[in-house]
């Protein structure tokens, strides 16, 4: 969060008014609230979940929602609410781990090729063209096929493909920033390339990347739960929203709550990240 404060200091509108403006937007507040609650559930699922998510109870199988089990129970009598809550841990982790490495690699590569251009930039351009020629999901599941299903392999697969999108964004932004006087001033003052790139260009160019990151975290949850649903991401009996929906699929006409509830969690969290992203975009935009 300190980055964001540093960034906005550059802007023409004072920090305080920007924050006040953002806080007046209901979307931003709702988004921040949803993500705040989600983060709490993810950090301390044990505090909020009424039961052990893996506690099997053959006497209470596929029970509809009730006071004792607000989201009902599954085919093994496990409490659905507790499983949805424990899944927050996995799915919120997904939002971060599936994006943060891609972003780091992308920001560095994008800044370097944007600054130096030349041959490396030409190669980079072809790599971008080649990667965007594959549908994202196709490439990711092809990589998962190579590495084998599972969460860690899924993160590796998404990172291998995803960094390109961050790098493309960063490269364009660095090139745009280099047109500014401060960048030429750095060169004239004899600063090292590293100093110009990482101390001057990067902090000014990173705003769109951060806004994209918010959207990407929402996408990562969608993608991760899709892979879980398809059997390529998290593996049962781990509680993950996509896995939970897939588990409930076979009983959808008799025990609809099994698939419905985890889906609502996905939608809410995705919505939270999108709203937060929109709000941040307003907050960080250079011109008010």
């Amino acid at each position, binding site marked *: 969060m300190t980055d964001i404060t540093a960034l906005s200091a550059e802007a023409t509108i004072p920090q305080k008014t920007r924050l006040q403006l953002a806080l007046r937007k209901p979307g931003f507040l709702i988004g921040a609230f949803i993500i705040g609650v989600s983060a709490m559930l993810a950090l301390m699922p044990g505090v909020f979940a009424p039961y052990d998510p893996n506690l099997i109870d053959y006497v209470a199988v596929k029970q509809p929602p009730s006071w004792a089990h607000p989201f009902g129970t599954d085919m093994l009598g496990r409490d659905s609410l507790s499983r949805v809550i424990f899944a927050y841990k996995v799915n919120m982790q997904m939002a971060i781990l599936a994006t943060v490495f891609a972003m780091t690699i992308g920001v560095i590569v994008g800044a370097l090729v944007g600054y130096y251009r030349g041959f490396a930039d030409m190669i980079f351009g*072809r*790599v971008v*063209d*080649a*990667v*965007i*020629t*594959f*549908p*994202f*999901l*196709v*490439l990711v*599941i*092809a*990589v*998962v*096929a*190579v590495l*084998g299903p599972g969460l860690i392999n899924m993160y590796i697969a998404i990172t291998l493909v995803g960094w390109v999108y961050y790098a493309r964004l960063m490269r364009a932004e660095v090139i745009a920033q280099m047109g500014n006087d401060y960048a030429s001033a750095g060169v004239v003052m004899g600063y090292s390339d590293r100093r110009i790139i990482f101390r001057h260009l990067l902090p000014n160019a990173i705003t769109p990347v951060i806004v994209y990151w918010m959207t990407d975290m*929402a996408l990562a949850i*969608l993608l991760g*739960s*899709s892979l879980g*649903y*398809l*059997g*390529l991401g998290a593996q049962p009996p781990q509680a993950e929203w*996509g896995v939970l*929906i897939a588990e409930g*699929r076979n009983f*959808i*006409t008799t025990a*609809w709550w099994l*698939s*419905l509830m985890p*889906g609502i969690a*996905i*939608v*809410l*969290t*995705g*919505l939270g990240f*999108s*709203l937060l992203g929109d709000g941040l975009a307003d907050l960080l935009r250079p011109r008010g």
Partner: protein
Amino acid sequence: MASIQYILKRLLLMIPTFFLVMIIIFLLVRFLPGDPAIAIAGDRASDADLEAIRERLGLNQPMLVQFWLFVTNTLQGDLGRSILLRAPVIDVIFDRLPTTIFLTLYAVTLSLLIAGPLAFVAALNRNKWPDAVIRTVFQVGLSMPVFYIGLILLTFLAAQLRWFPVGGYGDTFVERLHHMFLPSVTVALYTSAIIMRNLRSAIIEVLDAEYVQFARAKGLPDRLVLGRHVLRNALISTVTLLGLSIGNLMSGTLVTETVFAVPGVGRLMLEAIFARDYPLIQGLTLTFAVLVSVVFLLTDLFQSTLDPRMRLT
């Protein structure tokens, strides 16, 4: 029309891209765990059999030779044989491809029908309640995973109300429209959310443009202004966006085909992955890449035909 020169230049640019695409696919498949020869012949094959298969597929050759073989075979339309389906990969793919293309086109049509009118309503009522309602609904739609939308539609409209079949593909065109309606709506609901957002801002941008304000000021009726100026310009950006979203669309199709058991290339891809059918995975990945590049190319041509500013220099 776009000039021949432009088309040639655009095609030429695709060569290095495709070279890289081939390298990516080649490397992916080489890193697949397990011995492809064992995958083809089975666990109980003799060493001599395995050696024969390696010889035939060139698996005992150096990497560069293998890559050369892969490129030349692919260019000749030889993608190998599917282990799972015991047939040439190219035949299997051509067998399943029309279903996926049908689903995609159907979904695109539906998403335009859903997003188009709503984007107009939202843009013309900018920042009033209809705009807020439409945008909120689509924002929620964007946060829904495709498989979840599909599952809900399948449960309520097919299994409970029995308005639509639960699976299958249908034989005649009309049957097919009926069978593929829910899968198409599933993909369309997601795509229309993307289109709506952009179409709305495109329309607003055009409405605020000086030439539209001038057209209004000189007294042209609203219908004419909307039809001739706003619609035409908004259409360019929408088709471009649709073309550029083809990768997303294909990803959505892949998941939807799995949910609805539609016999297209998307479901085939998953079957191939679970069966570790590496020639099929290779062929399908390439097919998806070709499909996307063709659509990118068509989008470019469409855009440069309608909007001369966009022509590649």
